[in-house]
């Protein structure tokens, strides 16, 4: 293991370095995955472009219609920020089950997204919150939805000279709630067997106006489950309706069998956890009305 570390102070400089070194370079944020992958000789970048010295890549900005999260915002910051209470709770619930404290203190949201692990904990809540990524590269800035950004396991739409600088979350509608549930063999330091994030918004009559169901670790990327969502739209969220959404999600997801669990077990979990997460959203909407 021998690489050169570059410590640019601006985004422009970071992108210039990335353009110069191409596939020989990697951006270093928290390093909680990258350094381990290098140590395991799974990758061998000759240049690391450390982002820690660039001002403005961390922090949370509140705008009228959306919330911007700097790419270097740590899981711990998300866990502790009161901004994510209420309708954004799924993001906090996901952030606080990533690794131990030592990991959450340095691991960043940008790193978790760019890594594009099918089991990344933050991706289902970001999908449920309809988040976008903002990429800055040699050819300018572009913005695309998380769903467009994720292309496969560890594969994204980002080119070598593009830096993910921030994520944008649309502020959830007034009468909406979110929830996140993760399963693993223990409750901490785990790679998810399945994770589920849901967003539910009710109309004045109490029917489902917005439904978003996102799953992790049951397909090549974290993904939304549009068929299950459509089944609930416009319906009263009865227990039977939530169970039906779970059944459809279990049928539509694409899990594999691996060291953590079998595909069949993952489908059983999806069938059980989707209704549970949706029911949690309902409870939260109820509580916020009181």
């Amino acid at each position, binding site marked *: *293991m*021998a*690489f*050169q*570390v570059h*410590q640019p102070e601006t985004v422009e400089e970071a992108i210039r370095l990335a353009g110069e070194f191409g596939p020989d370079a990697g951006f*270093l944020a928290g*390093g*909680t995955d990258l*350094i*381990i992958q290098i*140590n*395991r000789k799974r990758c061998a970048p000759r240049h*690391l472009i*450390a982002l*820690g010295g660039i001002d403005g890549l961390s922090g949370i900005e509140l705008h009228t219609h959306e919330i911007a999260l700097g790419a270097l915002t740590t899981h*711990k910051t998300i866990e*502790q920020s009161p901004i994510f209470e209420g309708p954004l709770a799924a993001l906090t619930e996901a952030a606080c089950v990533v*690794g*131990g*404290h*030592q*990991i959450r*203190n*340095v691991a960043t949201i940008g790193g978790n997204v760019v890594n594009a692990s099918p089991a990344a904990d933050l991706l289902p809540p970001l999908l449920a919150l309809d988040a976008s990524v903002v990429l800055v590269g040699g050819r300018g800035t572009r913005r695309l939805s998380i769903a467009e950004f994720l292309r496969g396991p560890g594969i994204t739409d980002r080119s070598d000279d593009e830096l993910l600088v921030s994520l944008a979350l649309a502020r959830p509608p007034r009468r909406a709630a979110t929830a996140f549930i993760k399963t693993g063999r223990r*409750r*901490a*330091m785990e790679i998810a067997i399945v994770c589920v994030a849901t967003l539910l918004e009710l109309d004045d009559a109490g029917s489902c106006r917005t439904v978003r169901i996102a799953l992790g670790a049951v397909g090549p990327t974290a993904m939304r489950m549009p068929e299950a969502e459509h089944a609930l739209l416009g319906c009263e969220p009865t227990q039977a309706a939530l169970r039906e959404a779970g059944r459809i999600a279990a049928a539509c997801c694409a899990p594999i069998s691996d060291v953590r669990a079998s595909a069949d077990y993952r489908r059983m979990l999806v069938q059980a956890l989707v209704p549970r997460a949706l029911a949690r959203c309902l409870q939260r909407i109820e509580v916020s009305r009181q």
Partner: protein
Amino acid sequence: MNKLPLLLRINGEMHDVLVEQYWSLLHVLRDVLGLTGTKENCLEAECGVCTVLLDGKAVNSCILLAVQCRGRDILTVEGLGRPGNLHKLQQAFIDYGAAQCGYCTPGMLLVAKSWLDEHPGVVPEPDAVREAIAGTLCRCTGYQKIVDAICSAAARVQEPG
């Protein structure tokens, strides 16, 4: 590759070191500076024995590059307390017999300090402490005494040093 000069602030003292760019902070602490209180084990941020505080926050020094620590404040177990002037967590670990082989103890102490500092004035429930130390493994499995010691330390007032 040419080594880089690096000024590190460790336990309140400045250290001038020459480092390879790919060296971890753990390597610099143990093998350059001889601060062997910080332990080395999995080198994959799984076990937590290499935990130090970086700007007051618990981090795994095995996957942190030394060059990322320029200008930042590092605390290792050597700086937590001294014989005759122990940190309240160290005293509680002694009182409760919370060290068996002792290999995880520096990491346990520092992750506990980081948690207590994040939750000033809180005397935690045992479950909260178990969650706090989830990333720090004790292979003697003496967790109960460690949890008891941390809960007890949270309730103690730190003696002025």
